[in-house]
């Protein structure tokens, strides 16, 4: 169908061919009750005052509708923009010393970013976010699939490369979990939004410690529940192939499961953190010093075993927190309390 034809078909037919075009009429505040007339006749019949008040120009309505449909088709067929890899080419640290690094990341890679406060972790994430081309303070370059990024696709803001999670992010919409997820699914032009909502919800409940319902207002969720919902939503609905996580707190989210979920959805995950337990969840970690990547450390088997043990300490601490929270007094023997963490795994009771 050519663009011209669009104007000469009845509205009813247009809505069958392009169901989402209904939004064009509602969002622009145009009543689309006259469904049997052609689009062109409908535009011609609109009251001039009405069009003026909407900030529209009659002659441009047809062009607007065409652009609207083109944009929606792009979003629909564009599904997830795919990429095989991104490559981070080193720039300079804060003293101008060369970084000398070329780091390739592929879908399913989880890389943590560690370093003291002010060392440049967030800068590194920002470089990825804006697809730095030597034009940020660090002078880093990013390649997509080994090449300089396609200007029109990635740099024009047409496709979003990254989804972001950080602890400053909150829900500000006053809607229930169900409405919230439905809004997001609709904006992604998902055909079966009910199924998508159900899937994300069950995933989120799995990640969160305490359960919540589809009717809970999003603003009433606890910190952990919010984070769990955000992670499940980003993993399942966001089209962006890269997920940047900056300082996500230890707020009752099963972080191991959360990362596994992102990996399963073929995301590239970069995770800036001060928390050793979180840092060790990455397959590699970038050590940032004075604005530059000073080292890349692959998580060793020793560290993975350690992580397992450290997690049991972490659980003990949660237990402690819960006891105090619930008004209990602490009168136990510390060595005994921690004993199961220190004893070698799989040999309970061994002395």
């Amino acid at each position: 169908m050519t663009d011209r034809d669009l104007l000469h078909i009845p509205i009813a037919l247009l809505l069958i061919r392009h169901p989402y075009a209904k939004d064009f009429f509602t969002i622009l505040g145009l009543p689309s009750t006259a469904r049997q007339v052609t689009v062109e006749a409908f535009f011609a019949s609109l009251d001039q005052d009405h069009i003026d008040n909407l900030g529209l120009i009659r002659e441009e309505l047809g062009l607007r509708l065409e652009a609207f449909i083109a944009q929606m088709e792009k979003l629909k067929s564009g599904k997830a923009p795919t990429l095989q890899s991104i490559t981070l080419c080193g720039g300079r640290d804060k003293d101008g010393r060369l970084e000398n690094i070329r780091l390739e990341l592929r879908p399913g890679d989880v890389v943590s970013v560690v370093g003291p406060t002010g060392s440049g972790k967030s800068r590194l994430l920002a470089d990825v976010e804006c697809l730095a081309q030597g034009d940020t303070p660090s002078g880093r370059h990013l390649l997509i699939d080994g090449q300089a990024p396609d200007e029109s696709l990635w740099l024009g803001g047409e496709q979003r490369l990254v989804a972001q999670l950080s602890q400053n992010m909150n829900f500000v919409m006053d809607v229930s979990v169900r409405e919230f997820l439905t809004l997001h699914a609709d904006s992604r032009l998902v055909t079966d939004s009910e199924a998508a909502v159900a899937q994300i919800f069950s995933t989120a409940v799995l990640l969160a410690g305490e359960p919540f319902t589809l009717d809970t207002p999003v603003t009433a969720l606890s910190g952990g529940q919010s984070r769990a919902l955000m992670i499940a939503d980003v993993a399942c609905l966001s089209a962006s192939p890269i997920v940047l996580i900056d300082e996500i707190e230890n707020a009752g989210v099963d972080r191991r499961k959360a990362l596994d979920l992102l990996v399963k959805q073929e995301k590239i995950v970069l995770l800036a953190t001060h928390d050793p337990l979180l840092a060790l969840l990455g397959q590699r970690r970038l050590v940032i010093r004075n604005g530059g990547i000073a080292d890349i450390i692959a998580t060793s088997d020793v560290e993975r075993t350690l992580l397992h043990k450290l997690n049991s300490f972490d659980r003990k601490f949660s237990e402690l927190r819960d006891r105090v929270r619930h008004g209990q007094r602490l009168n136990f023997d510390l060595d005994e309390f921690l004993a199961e963490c220190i004893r070698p795994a799989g040999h309970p009771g061994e002395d």
Partner: protein
Amino acid sequence: MKLVTVAGPPSSGKTSVILRLAEELLKDGLSLGVIKFDCLSSEDEHRYAKAAIPVKLGLAGGLCPDHFFVANIEEGVQWGRRSGFDLLICESAGLCNRCSPHIREVLAVCVVDNLSGVHTPAKIGPMLKTADVVVITKGDVVSQAEREVFAFRVKQVNPRAAVMPVNGLTGQGSLMLQRQLRNAPDTQALEGVRLRFSMPAALCSYCLGETRIGPDCQIGNIKTMDFS
């Protein structure tokens, strides 16, 4: 000289975005100036001056700032040329949602923020609908889903615009906007050039026929009383 009109609801982040952008452009040796159109008073003048950016403030008083803008912009352009700017940015808060300072053949930027809610894009008039570039701020405080829904709603209202998130505090994302500015057309004079959309002879939402009472419906030059 390149001219850019930056419009958007009050406190959407226009000044912040312009300042972040200016930091980068000044580093590259570009010279730029700002004209700020506002109603009664504006702190923005000092913010620009503090960043060593030449600024002219135009106070509209009882007029809609956008009406005031059209009557003064040609002189403003001549000021910019005399000053030898590479880039002249006009910031205005389109208070009545019905006016828009955007001019044909001049890069038109609209700044809206994620906190204003997903229904806002549909409510903003020609200043959003006719913009070439829509900048969305305050993404740092809302969830990824809300950012995506908001951007989607903007694209529905203005499918032709380039839509880009920019953080007005850190400048994250302003690189994309910079690239747009560098490609903006040149403007020597505006005489005879047309506005993208006509302006009504009105100052506030009630002049425009609003009949409902309540803060959500009061847009424009509104004074509130102190009942405390």
